[in-house]
Each structure stands twice: as structure tokens, then as C-alpha cells.
């Protein structure tokens, strides 16, 4: 699709969307948000890029293949349960620090899990979008 308005808007929108995705991710364990929605919003940014600039550009902007994101996400999610084992609690027991941060709130292992979900969702969604868009172009 050739639309100057869309292309220009995309340029401004994608950084905002990615930033918002990151914001959603960080507050997810305390307030509405989380890795899943965050990942979807981030993937939506790339979907927008696909629509206005084409798959090739979007792939280049993502830098790594979607599959790498999937692997990264799964690994982080798997690893996030391990700290609990080290202090001899059951796997996946949430461990929290006492310190409080603005926006984020308390830090803890559930945030690590959320980050894993975040990357997994980005990976899967972009994989689906890229594949479908490439099919369309052929």
C-alpha cells in the first residue's frame, strides 16, 4: 500500500507503540498490563510496519528472526522458575525484593517470567504476520 500519510504516521507511531509495550510489560505484575499484552502491542508495531513499508523492511527492523525471539522467550520463562529452587522453594514460587521502584513497583521473579512471555508473543505474532504477508506478495 502506498500512502504517504500512513508511512509518515508509522514513523512516529512505532517508537511510541514499542515504548508503550515496554511500559505495559513492566507494570504487569502489579497493575493491568503484562507480558502478553505488551508483546501484542510490540508485535502490532511491526504489523503496522509490514502494512506501510512491506515485509522486508519490517524483518530488517526486527533484526533477529522471529524464531530467535520464540526461543529466547521460552528459555527466559523456563529459567524464571529456577531462583525459587535455589532457595529450596517449589519451582515457580515468586521471590520478591523489598525495594520499591516508581511505575514498576516491587521487583521479583514473576517479572522475569513476564519478560519471557513478552518475547515469546512478539516472536509468534511476527512469525505469523510475516509468513502471511509474504504469502500474499507471491
Amino acid at each position, binding site marked *: 500500500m502506498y500512502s504517504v500519510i500512513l508511512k509518515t504516521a508509522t514513523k512516529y507511531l512505532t517508537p511510541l507503540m514499542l515504548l508503550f509495550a515496554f511500559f505495559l510489560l513492566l507494570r504487569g505484575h502489579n497493575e493491568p498490563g503484562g507480558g502478553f499484552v505488551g508483546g501484542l502491542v510490540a508485535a502490532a508495531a511491526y504489523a503496522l510496519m509490514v502494512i506501510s513499508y512491506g515485509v522486508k523492511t519490517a524483518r530488517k527492523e526486527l533484526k533477529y528472526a522471529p*524464531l530467535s525471539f*520464540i*526461543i529466547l522467550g*521460552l*528459555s527466559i520463562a*523456563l529459567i524464571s522458575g529456577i531462583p*525459587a*529452587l535455589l532457595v529450596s*522453594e*517449589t*519451582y*515457580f*514460587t*515468586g521471590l520478591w525484593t523489598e525495594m520499591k521502584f516508581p511505575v514498576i513497583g516491587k521487583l521479583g521473579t514473576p517479572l522475569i517470567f513476564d519478560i519471557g512471555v513478552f518475547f515469546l508473543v512478539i516472536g509468534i505474532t511476527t512469525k505469523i504476520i510475516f509468513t502471511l504477508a509474504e504469502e500474499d506478495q507471491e
Partner: protein
Amino acid sequence: MDLLLLLPVLLPFAGGIVLLILKNHQKSQLYGNAVVSLFSLIVAVGLFSAIYDKGIYSVQLGGWEAPFGITFVADLLGSVMVLITAIIGFTTSIYSLASVDDERVKYGYYPLIQFLLMGINGAFLTGDIFNLYVWFEVMLISSFVLLSLGGTREQLEGAIKYVTLNLLSSAFFLAAIGIIYGLAGTLNMADLAVKFSAIENEGMVTVVAMLLFIAFGIKSAVFPLFFWLPASYHTPPAAVSAIFAGLLTKVGVYALFRVFTLLFTSNTEYTHTILLFVAGFTMLSGVLGAAAQNDFRRILSFHIISQIGYMIMGLALYSPLAIAGGIFYIIHHIIVKTNLFFISGYVNKIKGSYELKKVGGLYKVYPWLGFLFLIPAMSLAGIPPLSGFWAKFTVAKAGLELESFMIVGVSLLVGLLTLFSMTKIWNEAFWTDSPKDAPEDVKPGVFTKISMLTPVIILVVITITIGLYAEPFFNFSVRAADQLLNSGEYINTVLGGGS
């Protein structure tokens, strides 16, 4: 111990991730998969022996007490299923070494196998009905991809039927879970067992029971919901159809055993009578369907259905002996059925076809292959002293004790017809001369032989062991059945806060 209970799920998960990372190194994927499966087998043996010695064990993932936490629980039935899954997973990964083509490996065959095993193990170990749904989905999504990987016309046709009906079943399952939550306000199975006995609205409980029966019935391919199975199981490579045939339907059967012994026990006269009728029709329609087929794997697929009937029959009769028979049947069936599919794949490797009309004269050239086929085939038909005989004998005996002569009659007739089908394969593939226009036999190399026949030999040895040394297996089944019927220990273990 806590970790031991989780490892059957975590290990395939971690293994699947590692295999994904190794995506571009085909050789290391092949052997990596075998190594992960071997570790899974060791873990499963450890878990089984621990549960066998110490009784039911449960873990609350994340540390929240039941019924709020994520409950994992292993009883004898669950742990033996995990053990068999590990055995099948291990043999399949050896079998895959030579039988799965590079193209499939490139598109992630091995990671998918591991994720499939993760879903199956999760379903056997979870103590929460919603998580059961989630594990079913993990298993189904992996199986969808495995089934259609390769993308031939035949495969996609089978996959569409498979996906559609299984999604329908998931919808029923989810609807039932919604109603359960509305009725009881909990989804933890042990907690549900307690709450259900106090619910006044018994009609609604029966409705839920029937909804779940339809959901699990589609997944375990009972009459009249089995059409997807013979339409799809003969399309993927032999290794995939073997693991599907052995394990997937049995997860449905396991779920039926779980909910109809733990949750829906108040109105057994109604629910279990329906189960009994379904069992009879399942046996008959499966075996009659098989009689009309001429494709090696289609015959075997229809026999899965008729064998599921025996397991449901054990559940439906609902006496300690009958349930024990059902459990024994599941154990025997997974081993035997997977093995038959393995052999069909090897025959295809030599002859280049699954069509019985195009195959022949195998006994002359490969007498030992005939022997390897004969053991599981006769076991499936229930010829003493093989494992199938004891399984059928126990279920039939339980039926006679309860004076359900009709269903026992059906089961014996079906046994006879199974023998007919097996002799048909034997005659066509092994006994008669090879058809004149058949292409030259492909002589498998040494590596192919080792990779494809070792699993067959392992499973044949297990079949013979269960047959000749049936008593410990039988005693085990009785214990497992006893645990299912007296659900007090299960409930106490889960709700008692851990151990």
C-alpha cells in the same frame, strides 16, 4: 522429590528449546532428541518407583496451597502413564533416526515431538481440570503440526478432519469447565470431588459429566465420535502415526478414567450405563471397520478404536476388577499398538507401500520380521499367553462377575474378529507371493535396520514379559484401580498441603 514430579514436564520443555536452538544442525538434533528422551525415561522410572513405594505425591507449583495453586499430582495410574509415555518417546526417537526425512527435521520435527511429550506428561500429572485443558491444547497443537508437516495432499486432508473435530472437542471441554466452575466455584479436581458430593443440583452434574464425556470421547475416538481417527492416522510418516496411535487417544481414555472415578460417581447407574453401551458399539464398529480395509495402517487405525472400547468397558463396569482390567489394557495396548505401527513403517521401507495388495512374500525373505509382527499382532487379538490375553481375560471376567453377559459376548466376538484382521495382514503381507508387478525390494542398510528394528525388539520383549510374567503387572493394576476407586488418599494428598 518435588522436582522429580515436575521433571517429566520440564525436561521435554527444556529439550524442545535446546533442539530449537540447534535448528540448523540436523545431526545434533537427531542425537540430542535421543539423549533428551533417554533422560526422560530415567526420570520417569525414578518417579514411578517413588510413587510405587511411597504412594500418591503432590506438588503445588508456585507455592500457593491447593485449591488455589497449580497442582501437580502423581498417583499410580498417572505415574505408570508417564513411564509408558517415556518408553514410547524413547523408542520413537530411535525409530525416527533413520525413518524421518531431512525436510521434516529441518522444519522442526524433533522439537515438536518433545513439546508433544510435554503436553502428554502434563495431562497425566496435573491435578486441576483447567490445566488438563491447557495440557490437552499443548499436545493437540503439536500434533496438528506433526500431522500436517510435509504438506502432501493426503496429509492435509487428514489434518483438516483431525483439527476440526479436535477443536470441537476442546470447545465442549471448555464449556463443561465453565459450568463446573459455576456449579462448584473451584477447578482443582480433588476439591471438586469434595464439592460435587454436596451439590444438590444433581441433574446439572450429570449434564457436565456428559459434556466432558463427549469432549474426551472425541479425543479418545469412541463410538460415534471416531471418524477423524481412521481419516488421519495413516497419512503422516510411520514414526508420527506410531506415537499418535500409542499415546494420543489414551490421554483421552486416561481423562475419562480420572473424571469418572473421581468426580462423577454419584449417579453411576445413569452415566456408566451410557459408557457401557458406548463401549460395546465402539468395539464393534472399530473391528467391523477394520475388516473392510486393505491398507496396513488403516486396518491398525480401526483397531485402535475397537481396543478403546475394551478400556471404556472396564471403566463402565465400575468394579475394582473391571477398572484394574481397564488399566492393564491401557498398558498392554500402548506398547502393542505402537509396535505394530513401527512394523508397518518398516514394511513400507522395504516394499514402498502400505497397500496390502502391493505387498507380499515378506516371510520368505524376512522370516524374523514375520516373527516380530506375529507377537504384537497375536497379542492384540488376545491369544494366550501374550499380554492381550490377560487384558481381555480380566475385563471379561469382571463382566461375568457382574453378570453383564451381553457386553462380555460382544468383547469375545470382537476378539475373534481382531484375529481375523490380523491374519488378513499376515496372509497378504507375509504369506502370499509378492505381486508380479511389484517394484524391487529396497534393502535397508545396517543403520536403518538398527534404528528401525531396535524399538520393535524392545517393545516385543516388553509384550512377552507382560504376557509370561503377568502377575506383578496385574497386581499393580489392582492397586492402581483401588487408588482410583477409593479417592480419599488422592483428595487428602492434594488438599493436605503438599506431602
